[in-house]
């Protein structure tokens, strides 16, 4: 099984309420060095067999059309995952 990893982040100019909630809570645990937190989304798309160029191209298209909304989000990366999640091999 091959996996493609897609990372999506809110655009930098869009307020990130979830990230702000995390940023607000970190100092309570003594983490005072982080001045901002941005929270994003990761998708792992699995296919039978290897990740071919066609699979990667399809993943890019899915990332642009459905997994992200270009009005508010950027597709940060679309890449092949070396080790499948949960694999014992």
């Amino acid at each position, binding site marked *: 099984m091959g996996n493609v990893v897609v990372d999506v982040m*809110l655009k930098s*100019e*869009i*307020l990130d*309420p*979830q990230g702000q*909630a995390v940023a607000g809570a970190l100092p309570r645990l003594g983490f005072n060095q982080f001045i901002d937190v941005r929270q994003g989304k990761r998708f792992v798309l699995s296919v039978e067999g290897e990740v071919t160029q066609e699979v990667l191209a399809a993943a890019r298209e899915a990332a642009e059309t*459905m997994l992200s*909304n270009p*009005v508010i989000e950027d597709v940060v990366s679309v890449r092949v995952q070396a080790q499948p999640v949960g694999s014992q091999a």
Partner: protein
Amino acid sequence: MRIGVVTFPGSLDDHDARRAVRVAGGEPVSLWHGDDSLRDVDAVVLPGGFSYGDYLRAGAIARFAPVMSALVPAAQSGLPVLGICNGFQILCESHMLPGAMIQNDHRTFICRDQRLRVENATTAWTSDFQRGDEITIVLKNQDGQYVADRRTLDELEGEGRVAFRYVVEGPRALDDDKYDPFAGRNPNGSYRDIAGITNERGNVVGLMPHPEHAIERGYGPSLDGLRFFTSVLKSVVNL
């Protein structure tokens, strides 16, 4: 006049929307997300709720429902479409309206009676109002913050396509002697206090607050919501 109301898995306010259509004098028609037929309706309401659990992004998966493949071209040909709350989010995700909705800036779910100012009374869904009218209907959502880039916002303002704005209240005591937590600001951080917008043609309107919950005496804060539905009934007659 047949007004369709689409039910998606996770729609909550489809019953109230159909009831509002009936109270306004129209014939409500149930439409199903999985059918690509609009059943010859004269207008369509996309109701509030959490379509497909609002997973991914609010409205993002509903955009690809079979019913949308019929709705998008019909709207482009002038069919009146009203998106309420989740319906507004679906209209934005479908690019039928510009911009997007993100989480409320204060991160909490909100449910309250909300004053709005009517900014455009020429759309299919607002013609029974006068520009500048102030109305009070229910606002209830988690992802109600309207955002768009500056160019889009300037375009909306320049073309008179902001349909509704939140009325920013001064400090005021609420019924239970608590003070309004949203005094001096809009209730979700929406850019330029935008509560609802329309497309160029004025047949597609989306807004976060819920007109369908303000149509009957004894339920909801006013009867202001009814005029959305009487507006569209008149506009359909005048087509």
